C-alpha cells in the first residue's frame, strides 16, 4: 500500500497527474470507499486492502473530462470496464494514467456475516486465512470463504490496460461462473419464476445497481426520463421492478464485463449478476465467446450479425 501512495505522490508532485482516484478509509474497517485525492497530504488517507472491491473505472468518466490527467488504480478485472468505457468514448484514455494494482481476490463483510461471524471489530489479512477480531473474541476463516462471488470467477491476473503495474495478482477462479445460471435453466419455468419472484420482490429501487454499474452510465437513464413514457423513481406496480431489471440487463448486454458490482452493492442481496450472466452465456453460445472490455475495438455481439445466426426461438431460456 505504501508503495502505491509513494508512487501516487510522486506522479502528483511531478505534474504527470492532477488527481488520484483510489480508496479511502471510512469509519468501519471493512468499508473503504472510492475517493479522489488532489494532494500528497490527502493521500495519507489512501488505503488499499482486501476490502477494496469497488470498481473505480466509472468515476473516470467525469474526471477524464476535467483538466489534467487522473491517476487511477485498477485491479485486473476493473481494467475490462475501463476498456469498455474507452470503447464507448466515455473515457478519454489520454486523460488517464492507469496503475494496475495487484489483487488476490476481494472480500466482503457480508460473507463473514453469512459465515456466522458477528460483531466484527477488525479484520486482519494473513495470507490464506483471515483473522477477525470480534466482540466475542478472535475468529478465523479461510480467505477464499470470504471472497466476493465475482472473485470465484476471476477474469485472470492480467491487466488489460495499464501504464504500470504495482503488485502481484492471483487468478482466484475456483468455480464455473455459469454454474448458477445452468442450475436455474434446469429448473422448471415455474420454479425459475418463483426464484426470481422471491429475489426481485426484495427490490426497493434504490438504483444502487444502476449507479454502480460501469456501463450503466447514460447521462439520463430511460427510467429517469420520459423518452419511453417510463419515468419510475420507484416501482409503482408489481411489474415495474421486473421491467427495470430486464431492461437494465438488456441495455448492458454485450457491454457488461461481468464485474459483479451490481450484486456487490445491492442492499437487498439480490443476485442481479445472474441476469447479466445469462445474457453473456447465451451470446457466447449463440455467436461465439466474447468478453466485453477485453480490448477497445471488438464490436459487441448485439451490434453485429452474420447471415446465418440462430433464430430467436423459444426454449433457450431454460426448461419449460
Amino acid at each position, binding site marked *: 500500500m505504501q508503495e502505491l501512495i509513494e508512487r501516487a505522490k510522486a506522479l502528483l508532485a511531478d505534474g504527470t497527474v492532477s488527481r488520484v482516484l483510489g480508496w479511502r478509509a471510512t469509519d468501519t474497517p471493512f468499508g473503504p470507499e472510492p475517493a479522489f485525492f488532489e494532494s500528497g497530504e490527502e493521500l495519507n488517507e489512501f488505503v488499499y486492502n482486501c476490502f477494496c472491491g469497488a470498481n473505480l473505472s466509472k468515476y473516470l468518466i467525469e474526471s477524464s473530462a476535467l483538466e489534467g490527467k487522473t491517476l487511477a488504480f485498477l485491479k485486473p478485472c476493473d481494467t475490462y470496464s475501463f476498456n469498455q468505457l474507452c470503447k464507448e468514448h466515455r473515457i478519454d484514455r489520454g486523460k488517464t494514467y492507469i496503475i494496475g494494482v495487484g489483487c488476490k481476490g476481494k472480500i466482503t463483510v457480508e460473507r463473514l456475516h453469512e459465515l456466522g461471524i458477528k460483531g466484527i471489530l477488525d479484520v486482519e489479512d494473513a495470507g490464506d486465512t483471515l483473522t477477525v477480531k470480534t466482540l466475542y473474541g478472535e475468529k478465523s476463516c479461510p480467505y477464499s470463504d470470504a471472497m466476493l462471488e465475482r472473485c470465484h470467477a476471476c477474469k485472470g491476473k492480467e491487466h488489460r490496460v495499464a501504464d504500470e503495474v504495482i503488485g502481484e495478482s492471483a487468478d482466484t477462479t475456483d468455480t464455473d461462473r455459469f454454474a448458477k*445460471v445452468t442450475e*436455474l*435453466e434446469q429448473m422448471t*419455468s*415455474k420454479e*425459475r*419464476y*418463483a*426464484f*426470481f*419472484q*422471491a429475489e*426481485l*420482490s426484495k427490490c426497493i429501487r434504490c438504483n444502487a445497481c444502476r449507479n454502480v454499474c460501469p456501463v450503466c452510465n447514460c447521462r439520463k437513464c*430511460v427510467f429517469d426520463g420520459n423518452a*419511453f413514457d*417510463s419515468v419510475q423513481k420507484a416501482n409503482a*406496480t*408489481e*411489474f*415495474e*421492478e*421486473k*421491467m427495470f431489471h*430486464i*431492461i437494465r*440487463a*438488456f441495455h448492458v*448486454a454485450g457491454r457488461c464485463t461481468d464485474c459483479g458490482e451490481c450484486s456487490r452493492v445491492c442492499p437487498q442481496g439480490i443476485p442481479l449478476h445472474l*441476469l447479466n450472466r*445469462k*445474457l453473456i452465456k*447465451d*451470446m457466447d453460445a*449463440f*455467436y461465439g465467446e466474447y468478453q466485453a472490455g477485453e480490448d477497445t475495438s471488438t464490436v459487441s*455481439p*448485439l*451490434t*453485429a*450479425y*452474420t*447471415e446465418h*445466426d*440462430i*433464430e*430467436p*426461438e*423459444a*426454449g*433457450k*431460456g*431454460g426448461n*419449460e
Partner: protein
Amino acid sequence: MSIDDRDFRPVIAAFCCNWCSYAGADLAGSSRMKYPAEVKIIRVPCSCRVNPMFILRTFEKGADGVILCGCHPGDCHYSTGNYYTRRRMASLISLMEFVGLERGRVRVEWVSAAEGAKFAETMNEFVEHIRALGKNTRLEDLRCKN
C-alpha cells in the same frame, strides 16, 4: 377447464414491419383468410425498430402475448435491420424465459409480403398457443403479494 378459461380472450399485439409482414397481413386480408380478432397489429418501419421496452410495456399493460414479424433474414428492406432484430430477440426471449415467463409468449416470425397464408396460419397458431397458456400473470405479477 373452468368457465373463465373458456371465455378467456387473450390480448395480443403483433408488431409488423411495414415492408414485408404488414404487407403479408394485408395479403391475408385481401385473400379473406381468417385469424382471431384478438390479434392487433402495430405497424413499424422495420422489425429492428421494436425496442424491448415496447414488448415489456405491452405485457405491463395486460397483453398475454407479443409477436414480432419481420422480413426474412436477407430480405430486409433496409438490408440489415432484421439481422439485428434476430440477435436482440434471441437474447431477449431467452432472458424472459429465464426469469420465468412461459415459453412462447413472445415470438418472432419472418413473414414476407407474399406469405399471406403464412401470416394467417402463424396468427392462428400463436393465438391457440396463448389460449393454452392462459392469462399472463407471471410477468405482471412478480412481487410477493403477501
